[in-house]
């Protein structure tokens, strides 16, 4: 289980009288195995910031993030990085392809970085499930936004991570692919017992969630 305990992210920026503001303010949240947690909210409300802090990618200015009983940000960088590679599958917002690698190599990369041999068959199964197996030898530069997004999803899922953190994974997908991806994520939780966080402002996604939260000005409220 991944838990955020009262975490905050404070940035320095002139807003009114204060010279700083909170992108995330005192949020506590638990992502449980077998559940899909959905996070919605307006653009700029702090969703990405929260997701990055949960993923061990951004050090909070306050609070703790615990994976089971391990305080992520108390770990040395090498340990935290190893843990991130082994336990987390992160689908970031925007482009995240390594341009010099093919689609298949991109999907195999996390495993290779962990020092594994690289399970090409498994990777191809994920590409197939997302409908882009035919692009396995293409370079990211040749792909459309939706195809790149699905490649990133395949890459995040291929390592069989305990925690899946997806930042607007259906943002540039058509309806059909949106449904396929949402179904896939729900099945990771329901059938494989993974903890899934789904950041979205797609109302269509809400039914897929076990719990749904709404983010507003850095604060979290249950829907």
């Amino acid at each position, binding site marked *: 289980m991944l838990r955020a305990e009262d975490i905050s992210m404070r940035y320095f920026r002139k807003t009114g009288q204060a010279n700083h503001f909170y992108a995330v303010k005192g949020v506590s949240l638990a992502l449980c195995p077998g559940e899909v947690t959905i996070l919605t909210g307006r653009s700029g409300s702090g969703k990405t910031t929260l997701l990055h802090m949960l993923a061990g990618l951004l050090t909070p200015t306050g609070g703790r993030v615990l994976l089971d009983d391990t305080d992520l940000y108390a770990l040395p*960088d090498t340990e935290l*990085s190893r843990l991130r590679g082994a336990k987390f599958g*992160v689908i970031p917002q925007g482009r995240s392809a390594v341009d010099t690698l093919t689609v298949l190599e991109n999907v195999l*990369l996390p495993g290779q970085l962990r020092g594994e*041999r690289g399970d090409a068959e498994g990777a191809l199964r994920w590409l197939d499930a997302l409908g882009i197996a035919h692009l396995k030898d293409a370079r990211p530069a040749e792909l459309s936004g939706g195809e790149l997004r699905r490649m990133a999803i395949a890459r995040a899922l291929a390592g069989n991570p305990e925690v899946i953190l997806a930042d607007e994974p259906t943002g540039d997908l058509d309806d059909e692919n949106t449904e396929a991806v949402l179904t896939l994520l729900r099945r990771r939780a329901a059938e494989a017992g993974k903890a899934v966080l789904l950041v979205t402002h797609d109302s269509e996604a809400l039914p897929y969630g076990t719990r749904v939260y709404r983010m507003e000005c850095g604060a979290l409220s249950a829907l």
Partner: protein
Amino acid sequence: MGRAHLPVKNLLRKPGRTAALVLLTALLAASVFGGSVVVGSLRRGLESLEARLGADIIVMPAEAESKVSFKNLLLQGTTGAFYMDASVLDAVRGAQGVEIAAPQTFLASLKADCCAIKVQIIGIDPGADFTVKPWIEESYSRGLGDMEVAVGCKVTAGVGETLKIYEQYTHVVAKLAETGTGLDTAVYCNMDTMKKLLAAAEAKGVTHRLTSGSDVISAVYVKVKDGADPAQVNNWLNGHIRKVTAVRARSMFTDVSDSLSGIARAARVLIGAVWALALVILLVAFAMMIRERRREFAVLRLLGVSRRGLRDEILAETALCGLAGALIGVGVAALGVFPFTTLIETQIGLPYLTPAPGTLLTLAGGTVLATLAVGLLAGAWAAARLSRTDPGATLREGA
């Protein structure tokens, strides 16, 4: 990173970017290596010539001054055809403060006589000589006999062969080590042989005897006694022997040596400036490359690469670029310098002798290591800058 072979893939699959970095590095390495070789060659050329012509004073006929410049005579080892009566030698020996006075007689061969190039024939007195004899003895220790010659390294005839000079057959008994000067095209013989050659040349109408029957010499090389002042000896010789000019060879060497070390210093400053500039350019280039790729690097961090792992990835890339650039640069500089040794030598008009292979290897190795170090420094610097930001912050940018 092991299995992913990321650095190699990143370099090979972005050939334009890689080529630019390699080229930049090669330029740096080439200028450093090439510059060092040229400066080193000048230094060694001068040292070698100084060792060969280690005389304090050289006495020549006064008319010689109009025929050759003394500076050329010393620096290039070129000789001329000028003569004075052999009695000058006794006069020089009688001067106060003179320890050794060794005569030399010069004769130029006819062009098609023996060799492809016109050679200088230099007669020495093996008993007195202290300038070329030690050098000849490096390759031939028995002393030059009658009609035996020792040849400079650029004379085509080899040891054991016969060299025909003015219809006279001489025996090549030694081939001398390279000096990087005109002495490399000279042929050395003893004074008896020289007399025969002079007579043979005269028979062909190519000589300049002063008075028929008397012996001639071209120059007297003087070593002064310890404690004697070479300037005073020089003045005395100029004042007391008629129709000769005495010049202070060593001081001339010191002059040239000084100006040469000036050149070397300037070259070092220049090479240093090239290094500094290249260092800055490399640092900026690598920093720009890494800044442009910071999102890609943040993605690697997201996928589980630690700060240290990322630094190693970047260092591996910059080291590979640096190594390739250094090897290419040293290779190109070698191709640009070594085949043109003769051209450089004639262009700069200074003795020029390529350093020994060991020195060259050290120089090449040093250049490669230094270039590699610059690449690593640039990589480490860029990686350190990169690791100051959390990957989460970079991933948010422009997403």
